[in-house]
């Protein structure tokens, strides 16, 4: 019923993600387009695992299967590198640096979430206590990790306006370590206490580190997607939400109830509402209406209407051959929205002006390293 509102290529991708077995009878032309869309969405490994689990990887065109497998091999390599990075960070920090909570991709892997098996992630994200941030950073810097070379502006951007410090990379390796001291921008509209997340975190006995509790993992994912990110080509994060909702609900029948209660408690009704809403809309995640209406801070009808128009156009990849002005506009609007949510106006306007200046005169960025970081902070 919702499909009519999506472009044909979006329908194709969404169908592939929610019902991989239905791909067995699509045309070669559709496969060719789908492969490009899946590659852009960074979901080659995901689809390879899904089709493999259904025993269908040998029933699709062999050239497509080859590229899905290639993507899966790459994803597994990233996973291996991130696991090793985590091992090295634990070794470097020893026992006396307070609790460390692993976030995002690596956490999904450690928690054994089925949808994470073919997931690509390049960074290792860690949440530490704010008071431990400085000693942890010094220890890692002393033991071989380095920051990218940063301009004074980028340095200030990270330290004053974001919830993480500039990425650390060991000089012999490539995996970035992002160390967070809280979960949202300290100057953003949504002020989130990290303490309740820490208190509920689950210890992984064999590693001596923590991951967020299941409801908090879902909430953090929703906050990231609808509060911290610009949503462009971010379908894989919605898929994370979908995967978690399905997996945790099948484990605990009351999971969704608890999730709603927790969201209301932490005042995260809005991002969770969007998360559930778009999971239902695009991936048909089973979430009953009665639960949705229990959420507080739901958006008004106008905000929801605008989001409903824009979010799918941003989350789902553009058609590789057909430009779409509507999608560009939607992405532009969500880009503004994400900045608006993260920064007060007196910070936002000079920040975007500075970035516009850099985009016209790229040579003014101190060096390529800092322009890479600027690209990341956009």
């Amino acid at each position, binding site marked *: 019923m919702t499909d009519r509102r999506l472009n044909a290529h979006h329908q194709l991708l969404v169908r592939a993600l929610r019902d991989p077995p239905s791909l067995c009878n699509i045309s070669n032309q559709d496969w*060719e387009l789908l492969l490009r869309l899946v590659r852009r969405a960074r979901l080659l490994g995901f689809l390879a695992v899904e089709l493999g689990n259904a025993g269908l990887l040998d029933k699709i*065109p062999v050239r497509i299967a080859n590229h899905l497998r290639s993507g899966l*091999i790459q994803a597994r390599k990233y996973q291996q590198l991130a696991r090793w990075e985590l091992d090295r960070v634990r070794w470097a920090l020893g026992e006396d640096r307070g609790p460390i909570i692993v976030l995002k991709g690596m956490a999904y892997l450690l928690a054994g979430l089925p949808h994470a098996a073919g997931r690509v992630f390049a960074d290792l994200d860690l949440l530490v206590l704010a008071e431990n941030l400085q000693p942890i950073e010094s220890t890692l810097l002393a033991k071989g990790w380095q920051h990218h070379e940063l301009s004074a502006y980028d340095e200030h951007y990270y330290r004053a306006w974001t919830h993480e410090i500039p990425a650390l990379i060991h000089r012999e390796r490539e995996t970035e370590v992002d160390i967070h001291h809280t979960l949202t921008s300290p100057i953003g509209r949504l002020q989130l206490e990290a303490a309740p997340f820490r208190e509920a975190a689950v210890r992984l006995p064999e590693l001596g580190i923590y991951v967020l509790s299941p409801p908090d993992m879902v909430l953090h994912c929703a906050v990231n997607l609808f509060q911290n990110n610009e949503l462009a080509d971010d379908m894989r994060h919605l898929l994370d939400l979908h995967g978690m909702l399905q997996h945790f609900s099948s484990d605990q029948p009351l999971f969704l109830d608890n999730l709603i209660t927790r969201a209301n408690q932490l005042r995260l009704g809005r991002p969770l509402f969007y998360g559930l809403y778009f999971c239902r809309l695009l991936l048909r995640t089973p979430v009953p209406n009665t639960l949705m209406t229990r959420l507080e801070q739901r958006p008004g009808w106008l905000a929801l209407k605008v989001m409903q128009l824009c979010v799918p156009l941003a989350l789902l990849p553009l058609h590789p*051959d057909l430009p779409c002005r509507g999608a560009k506009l939607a992405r532009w609007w969500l880009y503004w929205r994400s900045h608006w949510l993260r920064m007060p106006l007196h910070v936002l306007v000079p920040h975007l002006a500075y970035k516009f200046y850099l985009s016209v005169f790229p040579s003014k960025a101190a060096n390529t390293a800092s322009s890479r970081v600027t690209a990341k902070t956009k």
Partner: protein
Amino acid sequence: MKVEQLSLEEFRARLGSKNGLRIQFGPFVVRIQSFLPSLANPLYRLYAFYTLANDDIAEFHVQIVSKRSLRRPFTPFVQFLVDGQAPFPAAPVHHALTMLEWGINLAIAVRVNHFLLFHCAAVERNGHVLLLPAWPGSGKTTLCAALIHHGYRLFSDEFGLMHVQSGNFFPLPRLMPLKNQAIGAIRDFLPEVTLGPEIHGTLKGTVAHVRPPEASIDREDEPAIPRWIVFPKWTAHQPLQLEEMPRSEAFLLLASNAFNYEVLGEVAFDAVTGLIQRCECRKLVYSDFDSALVALNALTDD
């Protein structure tokens, strides 16, 4: 159907069409699109023997597009795009052909993990593959160009495509970019060879592409098992040497030069081990093609 069966006009029209020019390169199909008038002519001549793959799935979608630079508004630039994204900066318009060829190679190198991708030239004689790995000063492309005009079948001058499970190598006969002095050397040694235009001022100096022989392209779907690995080195005025190379050294050189050895990990380690054990490994020092040919013929004779 081959490219040469199209007229130049039809070829140009396909390049500029929505469906693009769809070419079979060994196990891959590449869709190429460009409106650039200066690209169609050399491409038509150099791609003459390739098969048009109109109904097959294309895995790589590339474009050469015109680009204007704000800082140099009157110099025409071109950009290579793969799935709409530019992996390297724009270059002057006369670099279009080298950009296209390098761009396709780059796309293959970063996306393909269902083969172990060695950085080497590969040719076949008497049913078995001879690998010529890239190492500094090897001149693998030059030696490879000489060999394929003397009875060897071209697999590739750049990629050794190993199917890990079977040990088979697959041909990927792409245009072969000769650089700088090698252009003159090959023109002298092989007057019959079809060369593309000399492209000056690229990152690697002057480049001219050798068109692969038709017979090699016709058999681009026939894999073979390698039997010899020869590390070539061109040195002026040196007597020819073809001597045994320790297998451990061959392993390290081969593995450290592969594009996706790290990504494939243990699978790649086992594959290279098996390959090295099955092959004769030699080091070749040569200063002229004739004596190199005699030595390699003797090595690869049945």
